[in-house]
């Protein structure tokens, strides 16, 4: 025993010695651990009481960013679904003391991650230091995003992606969910400087760069934070979203009268950040150099012509539910105790890949294919996918049958035709079982609720709620890629879209701080939670208000389109698809609102 322990001791010593004196050791890093108190010696008026409404000087907002900000109404914070939104990663430095600690690998003692906790609104960030890969672009976004860190001498450089859309100031200045954050954390003795660089192709013409300071304070006492949302203003109709018509915002110039902020500066823009702008402040007619704006065009929808080259991406959403992404609509896969159910089937050409992707998840038999609408990118693979599964043989009927295809009866109506007429699609794609009631239930190790959303995207929409897994598959009522597609020819309505979005919000519940909990698989785009649907609902509602305002002012459709009522969201949702553009969306909303006025 003695011999053995001596050996171990010697070996441990050698390992330590090699670790200390060999040149291959990891370069030294600064210890950031400790409790840090926030110093408010910059922008105190912004970070405490907040800027004046309409005051954006020094912010590199582009035209969309300004329009979005002018739409913002502070009353939106009274909505229960907005009350518990915490400060996002790019705003945590604005208010509250923080604690930083490191997480180490117990075996190697290497730092795996830095953790940061902000007292105000109790947010915790994790900054991964172990070179782990970033999540898929289809993964859910969070308020704090996904952060990785790397030391450059005494600077910890942090890159954050997967952020939810959020405000970085409480005046409606938004960073979109396509935005990213770069930080440099630099410690000098008992002071910590955090530099933030916010980049956003949707709302910023240039990166917004800010710096904040902290002092080490081992004496501070951190406190928790408990947010319980309540209806602060009674009597509001469901789905109410307070906003301003951007071109009629009455507070645009408040800072001019109240704080003497020059009018040429108050609406911000990249030029207001640079020394040359001082000349403009002294003489509004002075010429200042133009600052090149970051031009962005919305992401185009993926082409569907090269389906052979396309691969299917599978992500676990939560518990028993997965999302498959290919060329068409998202597919939701639910793995029960004995079998598999899927929601939607994309295109026929992709069916073998879809079936293979399902088999990568489980070998259990496929029993049901649920269609959320009759669209080709939701139902095109019905026959092939159903054939890959089978339905249980039930007495007295013999013979194995493919998996059952379920949808609302209006889906069958749209896909089929009266006897003697040619149906728009092959009968092999038709639902084999339909429901005409407001909802239908299925069971596969958990309760599965099929809810008919009347007259939303079409008149046959179904949202599928997996109760045990707490996941909702929304179909095309909700997308993170485009404005809602309102198929008016097939019974879709703008009001129905809004009603359905509000219904999804009503059905879902966050885990805490307006995040997680119920997850939503959208018709197209990434995995979401309630906050993302709220964000989308707010956008659709606001556009409705603007178009209604233009109609009330007597504008024609052409004039409404020319007024660009969606301009602030076009960089995010304006990507044209073969059958849907921002202008067709405006037209659909205009026609419905115009008709409802009659």
């Amino acid at each position, binding site marked *: 025993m003695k011999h053995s322990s001596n050996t171990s001791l010697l070996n441990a010593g*050698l390992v330590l*010695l090699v670790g200390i*004196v060999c040149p291959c050791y990891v370069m*030294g890093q600064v210890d950031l651990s400790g409790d840090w108190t926030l110093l408010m010696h910059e922008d105190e008026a912004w970070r405490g009481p907040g800027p004046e409404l309409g005051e954006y000087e020094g912010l590199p907002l582009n035209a969309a960013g300004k329009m979005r900000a002018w739409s913002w109404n502070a009353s939106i914070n009274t909505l229960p679904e907005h009350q518990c939104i915490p400060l996002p990663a790019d705003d945590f430095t604005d208010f509250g003391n923080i604690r930083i600690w490191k997480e180490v690998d117990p075996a190697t003692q290497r730092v795996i991650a830095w953790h940061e906790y902000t007292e105000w609104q109790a947010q915790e960030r994790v900054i991964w230091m172990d070179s782990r890969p970033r999540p898929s672009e289809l993964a859910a976004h969070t308020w704090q995003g996904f952060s990785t860190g790397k030391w450059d001498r005494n600077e910890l450089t942090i890159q954050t992606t997967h952020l939810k859309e959020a405000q970085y100031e409480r005046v409606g200045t938004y960073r979109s969910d396509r935005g990213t954050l770069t930080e440099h954390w*630099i410690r000098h003795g008992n002071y910590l400087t955090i530099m933030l660089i916010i980049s956003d192709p949707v709302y910023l013409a240039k990166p917004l760069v800010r710096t904040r300071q902290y002092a080490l304070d081992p004496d501070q006492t951190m406190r928790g934070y408990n947010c319980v949302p309540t209806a602060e203003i009674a009597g509001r109709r469901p789905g109410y979203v307070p906003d301003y018509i951007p071109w009629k915002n009455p507070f645009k110039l408040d800072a001019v009268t109240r704080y003497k902020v020059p009018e040429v500066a108050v609406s911000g823009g990249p030029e207001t950040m640079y*020394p040359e702008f001082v000349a403009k402040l002294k003489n509004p007619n002075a010429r200042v150099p133009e600052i090149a704006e970051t031009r962005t065009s919305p992401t185009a929808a993926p082409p569907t012509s090269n389906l052979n080259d396309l691969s299917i991406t599978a992500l676990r959403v939560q518990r028993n539910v997965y999302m498959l992404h290919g060329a068409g609509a998202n597919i939701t896969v639910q793995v029960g105790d004995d079998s598999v159910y899927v929601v939607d089937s994309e295109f026929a050409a992709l069916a073998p890949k879809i079936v293979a992707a399902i088999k990568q998840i489980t070998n259990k038999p496929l029993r049901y294919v649920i269609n959320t609408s009759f669209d080709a990118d939701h139902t095109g693979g019905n026959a092939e996918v159903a054939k890959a599964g089978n339905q249980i043989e039930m007495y007295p009927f013999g013979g194995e049958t493919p998996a059952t295809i379920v949808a609302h009866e209006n889906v069958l109506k749209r896909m089929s035709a009266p006897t003697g007429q040619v149906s728009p699609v092959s009968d092999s794609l038709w639902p084999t079982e339909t429901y005409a009631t407001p909802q239908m239930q299925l069971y596969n190790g958990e309760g599965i609720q099929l809810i008919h959303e009347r007259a939303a995207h079409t008149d046959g929409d179904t949202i599928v709620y997996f109760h045990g897994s707490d996941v909702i598959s929304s179909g095309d009522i909700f997308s993170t890629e485009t404005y809602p597609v309102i198929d008016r020819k097939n019974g879709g309505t703008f009001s129905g879209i809004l009603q359905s979005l509000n219904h999804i919000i009503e059905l879902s519940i966050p885990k805490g701080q307006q995040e997680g909990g119920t997850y939503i698989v959208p018709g197209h785009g990434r995995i979401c939670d309630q906050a993302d649907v709220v964000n989308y609902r707010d956008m659709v509602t606001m556009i409705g208000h603007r178009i209604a305002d233009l109609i009330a002012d007597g504008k024609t459709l052409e004039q409404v389109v020319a007024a660009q009522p969606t301009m602030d969201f076009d960089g995010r949702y304006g990507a044209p698809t073969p059958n849907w553009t921002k202008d067709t969306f405006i037209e659909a909303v205009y026609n419905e609102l115009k008709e409802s006025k009659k």
Partner: protein
Amino acid sequence: MSAVRPSLVSTRPTGRRRRIGLTLWLCLAVTGLHAQNEKTVPPANAKAAAPIDFTGQWVSVVTEDWRWRMVTPAKGDFTSIPLNQAGQKIGDAWDPAKDEAAGLQCKAYAAPNILRMPERLRISWADDDTLKLETDTGMQTRMFYFKEPKSKGGDWQGVSQASWELTTGYNFFSVMGIDNNVQSGRQAAGQRVRKPTSSLTVVTTNIRPGYIRKNGVPFSDKAVLTEYFDRTNESNGDSWLVVTSILDDPVYLNQPFVITTQFQKQTDRSGWNPTPCSAR
């Protein structure tokens, strides 16, 4: 005649000892190589020792305190500054006309506030041990002395002592005498080996009393300004100069006034616009 010292243990290496010996040999060989690589002559001067290059032209990007930097704030607006009552009293008595009449237009362009101006900076080496910082706004020049300062201060920019920030350099192996640097005689046991980080530290004293802000917020002749200069390099090619400044003033401040100001690196010398001090 030779005496053979009795050995307490067998001198014949066992397999285990061979392994340990081999490990030690490898370790020492590697560290020896490392030591050889490190046998470099210490840098002769601050310029040669510079861990990072701050030289070039930089432009301020005013995204913070805009209302207090891009325009002259109103008298009595002390927002964000931990100003004590004595300081507030002086701030409330600010009279720019009086400053102009006295030829004191540059009071707000002194070291504690000069980097808060909307401006461009030019940083260059005045000599091998002195870094020079010039501003176009207010046309001020600051000299950061890494050796004995050639100025005694007493003007708006005071006297600035510069140093490259160093790591702590503690190493208990050095105290034990088993560190390679100690064994090779290049270092005394327990001597700290402090390596430069990428920061420049500048401590400025003996500054002529002036303003922290253009609207007459005062600092006294007892003020000590400590600044840390850092530089970042972004993946898109941008580079930022980040200056964290800590102003201690026992006369007019309730606590150190800590701010950070950022400047973007220019790839050219465009936009340089020398402008004299203005009291308003």
